């Protein structure tokens, strides 16, 4: 019997392997003649331990078929704009063989006794649900056909289904699923792991462009977001934390604040020392959020000294320079002998790359509504990780998790920010202390200054090519943040970083400096930053080798160096980049973009990069024009993705790719968070007339900066489908930098590009 494999991905999201997970179907008759299909799964250890008496099976799907032939499917995962509330039900509907117009989708609450893996992060929903969801639909279809076969006394093999109707063509009989549901509920549920699935050629829904479930709620401004939640007697809260992360409150003029109009409470929250938990601060509560903000302006807090106040961006840069000049603290990977190979190389190059801290800045600021009744806590929040969120609240407040009910509401953007649950624990604490229901709503300034930032980083590269233009030596010294062997969250690097495995003499090393600033996963964590440095330097290697940037990469990928050292675990093996798939997307990108076949005017260039992250493969070509005064304009982007055999909803997949491309452009153009005296300098968005952030503001891409066209192409392969929220992001920035280099002859090795003078004549 296969053991289920469970590991944690880049975002700390538990990923269960779909192949080794065993799901079971539970079928219940509904009053009035309906049918409820619920699949559940338990870790095999639990089933073996408990036998068949598993008390609260964790459902991975929940389907209701009612006599009116309406199919209601519960969507279990948090919706943050990635389209999962549309995609997961599509998988069930496909195999059930119902028409999408028959399907109603409802959002499930957070409930680990019913659903498993309710999370949004790591592009995990597709690979973990592709088979389990389809099997539920397929099993339901089998039971409905069995019911029809019994009613009509015909063999099941003579039955077909279409659009929620079972047909017996020979006798011209037909019945809707709704009419068959009551009988189907009495049939034996088939085993999910052997239920036959459709041949993908028969798909009617998967692969079609399906519109967002609930689109009209968005276009008519319905109150569907966390910020829109209201409960009776709701009060509004602001939580003022120290600008220096973790500094405690020494004193505050609470009495003066409490006396201000509309204010009902003001108190100090001691908080703890864990950056991901409840931080110290002052809570101000009133009957009106705007009046709370007015009172906040009168709040005077003395913050206690905190060691992080000694940290600054200037200090990080100075320390990085010092560390880069010393031998690295750790070796992450070492193949061959890089020092000797550099000495004997025909040509060597070296370059330093660096990139800043950046904020997530989802447009909906963090918020949570919390309501206590007795010892029970009810919460509404757009968190990406409700399960760890509930656990954090329970442990911080000293209550049991089952005292907490969590409602999942649509989030106004995630991008990884809502993988952390600080706002959740703040709201729970404040509501308990104030003894009133509370909606905690952060200001934009709170959000930007108390993020879990994408960490900055510093890289020194060295490489050598031989007389044939082959890359024979490659060294990376990555200066990052952390302590000892531990990297700060999302500030790490792994031994698989390309070009590892494709260069005979290669060394990846790291050194770290301490960090008191919170960091965390931002869309395509690690990859979003490492791609800029590694793919950027690979472009320089191609130039040193005198080769075309695409051909140089392809040639290298065709020559994998046989692995030495300890054999990889099967899981490590499965996580390795597949060189053939990379070659596939690079060749397609070359074809669709007309690479090397277009005569470009001076000031215009094309650049390319690829990246493998979150199980997905993307190659992107950027065409950009740089004016003589140094302004960059992206003319067009070609994005080629290989995320397996099927694009479940091309409508949303295309959106995710275009969104990731533009998100990366925004980062490249002008995003930077700097720190002075242990606190973030930027506090709000840059005004619309600026194309980049500055000393006090942070820029997001604006419509004027968006190119006219981003072509999205899919390289369909035989692999099982994987997720799309993240992998399209990493290649864009290095591809853009390649285009800028071709246009101007200037290499951008520091982000954002507003720091590099790109004027040319």
């Amino acid at each position, binding site marked *: 019997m296969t053991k289920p494999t469970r590991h944690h991905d880049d975002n700390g999201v538990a990923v269960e392997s779909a192949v080794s997970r065993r799901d079971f179907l539970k079928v219940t008759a509904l009053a009035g003649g309906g049918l409820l299909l619920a699949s559940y799964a338990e870790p095999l250890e639990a089933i073996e331990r408990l036998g068949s008496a598993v008390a609260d099976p964790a459902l991975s799907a929940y389907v209701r078929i009612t006599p009116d032939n309406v199919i209601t499917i519960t969507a279990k995962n948090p919706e943050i704009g990635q389209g999962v509330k549309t995609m997961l039900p599509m998988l069930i509907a496909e195999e059930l063989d119902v028409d999408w117009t028959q399907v109603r989708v409802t959002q499930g609450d957070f409930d680990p006794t019913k659903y498993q893996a309710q999370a949004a992060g790591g592009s995990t929903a597709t690979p973990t649900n592709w088979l389990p969801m389809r099997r539920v639909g397929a099993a339901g279809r089998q039971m409905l056909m069995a019911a029809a076969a019994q009613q009509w006394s015909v063999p099941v093999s003579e039955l077909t289904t279409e659009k929620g109707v079972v047909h017996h063509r020979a006798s011209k009989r037909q019945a809707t699923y709704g009419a068959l549901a009551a009988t189907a509920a009495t049939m034996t549920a088939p085993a999910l792991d052997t239920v036959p699935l459709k041949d993908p050629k028969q798909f009617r829904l998967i692969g079609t462009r399906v519109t967002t479930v609930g689109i009209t709620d968005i276009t008519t401004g*319905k109150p569907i977001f966390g*910020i829109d939640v209201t409960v009776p007697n709701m009060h509004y809260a602001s939580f003022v934390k120290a600008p220096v992360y973790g500094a405690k409150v020494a004193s505050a003029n609470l009495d003066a604040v409490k006396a201000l109009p509309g204010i009902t409470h003001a108190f100090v929250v001691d908080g703890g020392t864990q950056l991901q938990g409840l931080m110290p601060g002052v809570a101000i509560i009133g009957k009106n959020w705007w009046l709370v903000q007015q009172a906040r302006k009168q709040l005077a807090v003395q913050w206690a000294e905190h060691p992080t106040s000694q940290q600054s961006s200037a200090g990080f840069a100075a320390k990085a320079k010092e560390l880069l000049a010393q031998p690295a603290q750790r070796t992450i990977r070492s193949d061959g002998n890089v020092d000797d190979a550099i000495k004997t190389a025909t040509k060597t190059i070296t370059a330093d790359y660096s990139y800043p801290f950046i904020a997530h800045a989802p447009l*909906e*600021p963090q918020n949570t509504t919390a309501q206590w009744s007795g010892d029970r806590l009810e919460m509404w929040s757009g968190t990406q990780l409700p399960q760890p969120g509930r656990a954090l609240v329970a442990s911080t407040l000293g209550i049991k998790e089952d005292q907490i009910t969590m409602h999942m509401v*649509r989030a*106004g953007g995630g991008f990884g920010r809502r993988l952390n649950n600080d706002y959740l624990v703040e709201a729970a604490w404040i509501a308990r202390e104030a003894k009133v229901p509370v909606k905690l709503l952060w200001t934009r300034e709170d959000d930007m200054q108390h993020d879990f930032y994408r960490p900055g980083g510093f890289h020194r590269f060295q490489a050598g090519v031989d007389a044939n233009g082959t890359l024979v030596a490659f060294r990376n010294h990555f200066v990052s943040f952390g302590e000892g062997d531990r990297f700060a969250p999302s500030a790490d690097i792994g031994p698989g970083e390309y070009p590892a495995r494709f260069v005979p003499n290669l060394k990846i090393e790291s050194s770290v400096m301490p960090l008191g600033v919170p960091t965390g996963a931002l869309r395509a964590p690690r990859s979003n930053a490492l791609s800029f440095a590694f793919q950027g330097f690979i472009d320089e290697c191609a130039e040193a080798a005198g080769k075309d940037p695409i051909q140089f990469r392809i040639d290298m990928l065709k020559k994998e160096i046989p692995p030495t050292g300890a054999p990889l675990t099967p899981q490590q093996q499965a996580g390795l980049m597949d060189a053939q798939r990379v070659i596939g997307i690079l060749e397609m990108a070359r074809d669709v973009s007309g690479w090397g076949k277009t005569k470009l005017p001076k000031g215009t260039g094309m650049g390319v990069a690829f990246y493998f992250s979150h199980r997905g493969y993307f190659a992107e070509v950027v065409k950009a024009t740089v004016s003589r005064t140094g302004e960059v304009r992206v003319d067009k982007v070609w994005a080629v993705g290989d995320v397996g055999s099927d694009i479940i909803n*091309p409508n949303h997949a295309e*959106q995710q790719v*275009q969104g990731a491309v533009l998100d990366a452009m925004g980062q490249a153009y002008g995003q930077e968070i700097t720190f002075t005296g242990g606190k973030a300098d930027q506090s709000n968005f840059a005004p619309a007339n600026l194309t980049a952030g500055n000393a006090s503001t942070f820029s997001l*891409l604006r419509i004027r900066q968006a190119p006219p066209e981003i072509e999205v192409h899919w390289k369909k392969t035989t692999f099982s489908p994987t997720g799309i929220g993240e992998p399209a992001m990493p290649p864009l920035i290095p591809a853009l930098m390649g285009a800028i280099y071709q246009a101007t002859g200037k290499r951008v090795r520091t982000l954002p590009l507003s720091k590099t003078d790109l004027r040319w004549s």
Partner: protein
Amino acid sequence: MPITLKINGASRTIDVPPDMPLLWVLRDELDLKGTKYGCGASRCGACTVHVNGVAQRTCQLPVSRAAGADITTIEGLSPDGGSAVQQAWAELDVPQCGYCQSGQMMAAAALLAKTAKPTDAEIDTALNANLCRCATYLRIRAAVHRAAEIKAGAPVGGASSKREED
């Protein structure tokens, strides 16, 4: 002091401080939650409504200055999503997270009221103050063009489920 507002064709009287921004009056006093808070500094456009037909940020607009004006919010653009802009937004499935889209649609509707057939450049100028963190900008542009067609009498397509050509 009571202030009377004309919102979505109806007269509403509230008793709030005169310097309270219209955004918070709409959201927390009048329960019109389609208008969103994003920055409080007139930089993101999530709080865009029409004041006398002009797209305007409400997060810094004192309610006293809106008294007597004709105010239209997303809820008043058309309650059932039937306006040209809302139909185009649904047909092209513009939103990802959706949070900024009320503001985007209000800005687009104000543009189309003045300019029946805007160019890409005109769209970019009119909507540049509206941030979309998910960066749905290409579909926003296309949807403004589509809304212009719908306003000019083009037939309206429905939300779709079409097979993708390989």
